[in-house]
């Protein structure tokens, strides 16, 4: 509740401003780009105009290759991320609930964390060849470790008193994990999934640059051969927009219904809770 009473119309305006706020940086960025391009007129091989990029998107969409590339990339990302999240959460729970195991695995984790996903590329090309398997592995590799580490941390940080209190209600080990440990660790798990998806996109594009015949990464790579900066920029924009859409329409609703509803994290928009 705010101190000053607000009319419904003003409240509605306030909500609209809140809703549009996340889009304003995009508008500002687009405006700056247009102004620069109209002043400097760089050649297409250096920098495209917004019209060039829109034209490239239309051209690719009409030929049908854009949809094929997007679907190929999404399929790889979805498969790799799903495997990474599922295995990361499961392994994170086992490790987080088992202190000796966590201590045992810690050096291994630091070791593998230091090796970025791309380093695996030369080895993996020899092992699984070029194709979906390679991309899926690289995405899994980025998602798994982040989700795993966050899950371990989340499980370990659930207050012991919550677990104890539920055990005095007669809960066994499984009920304690289900009703206390999992929801307690959820803020960390979701945070891990969010970072993991970000790194997953990077791994996906890197894998497609080298080891694929379709996909957004490959689309960008092919365009580079012909200095088609309009396609390169279009590819980057599409990747960024899909990532934003996934965050907004997949992750945020889950957060709003769970950890935000439970008062475990601050609300991301729309004023402060009463």
């Amino acid at each position, binding site marked *: 509740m705010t101190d000053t009473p607000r009319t419904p119309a003003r409240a509605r305006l306030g909500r609209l401003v809140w809703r549009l706020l996340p889009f304003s940086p995009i508008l500002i960025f687009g405006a700056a780009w247009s102004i620069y391009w109209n002043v400097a007129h760089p050649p297409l091989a250096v920098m495209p105009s917004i019209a060039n990029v829109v034209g490239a998107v239309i051209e690719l969409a009409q030929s049908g290759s854009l949809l094929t590339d997007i679907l190929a990339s999404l399929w790889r990302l979805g498969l790799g991320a799903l495997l990474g999240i599922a295995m990361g959460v499961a392994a994170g729970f086992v490790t987080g609930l088992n202190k000796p195991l966590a201590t045992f695995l810690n050096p291994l984790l630091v070791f593998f964390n230091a090796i970025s996903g791309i380093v695996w590329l030369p080895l993996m090309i020899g092992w699984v060849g070029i194709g979906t398997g390679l991309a899926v592995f690289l995405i899994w590799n980025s998602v798994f470790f982040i989700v795993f580490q966050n899950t371990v941390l989340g499980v370990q940080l659930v207050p012991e008193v919550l677990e*104890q209190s539920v055990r005095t209600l007669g809960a066994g080990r499984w009920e304690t994990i289900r009703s206390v440990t999992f929801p307690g660790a959820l803020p960390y798990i979701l945070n891990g999934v969010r970072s993991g998806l970000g790194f997953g996109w990077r791994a996906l594009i890197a894998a497609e640059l080298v080891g694929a015949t379709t996909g957004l990464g490959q689309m960008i790579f092919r365009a580079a051969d012909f200095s088609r900066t309009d396609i390169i920029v279009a590819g980057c924009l599409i990747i960024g927009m899909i990532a934003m859409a996934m965050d907004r329409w997949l992750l945020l609703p889950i957060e709003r219904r769970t950890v935000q509803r439970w008062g475990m994290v601050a609300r991301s928009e729309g004023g402060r809770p009463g």
Partner: protein
Amino acid sequence: MSGAVDKIEVAGFRHFFQSESGPVQATSIIDLRIQAGEFVTLVGPSGCGKTTLLKAIAGFIKPSEGRIFCNGRPVTGPGRDRGVVFQELAILPWRTVRRNIGHGLDIAGTKPAERDRIVARLIDLVGLRGFEDRYPHELSGGMRQRVAVARTWAADPDVILMDEPFAAVDAMTRLTLQEELARLCATTNKTVFFITHGVEEAVFLGDRVLVMTRRPGRIKAEIAVPRRTPGGRDWESFTADPEMQAICEQVLRLVREERGATLVAGDGASVVPAA
């Protein structure tokens, strides 16, 4: 006592904690019996080992020495026969008031209709009607502790262990919660073991007040409090009753002796001599 099994029996309990410089003695030898329907309060200086004793009865820590029984059965771990109301916030933030209070019944497999009936009655008893579907973060500290109390009562344990449950709420709310607890106990006739460092709280709530020495604590005195009528469990009549005030003074003296002893024994060097 007339052949009945004690609800709680603590026999020859003693506990040590492991620290880096070796074992630290948390309590001296403690013997304790609590009978069905009794409200026993334990008051003692901070660090005397009273929480250690409660945690051992709850089954969270294994005693270094001695044995603990609940209904004649040895305690080996936490269980639904011994409910605990903790000092800090221990209700689940991701469950509504209704689902927190009904949690123990869900675990026990109580039928939903029966569960809802029990939960609704307890919500009325602790004055949370209208807040059934709120989450803990939407409640005040006092209301959260009411949920914690109701949750433990709903699971219907044999004994309820309470570890300074009202220490974290403001003074005015605490008075109300103490009155509500006294009424709740009178209505439900539960066996309660209640730990506090508040002398008046101990006398107000307890049928029997136990006083512990400083660490390593043992029970040094036991004061019976005459039964009050269920209607007379409020602070106004309590403070106006000379008999109750006399008991408070007696308990206070016993507790203060321990504080004085701690000052001389532990902090002797820092005590400034009177000018």
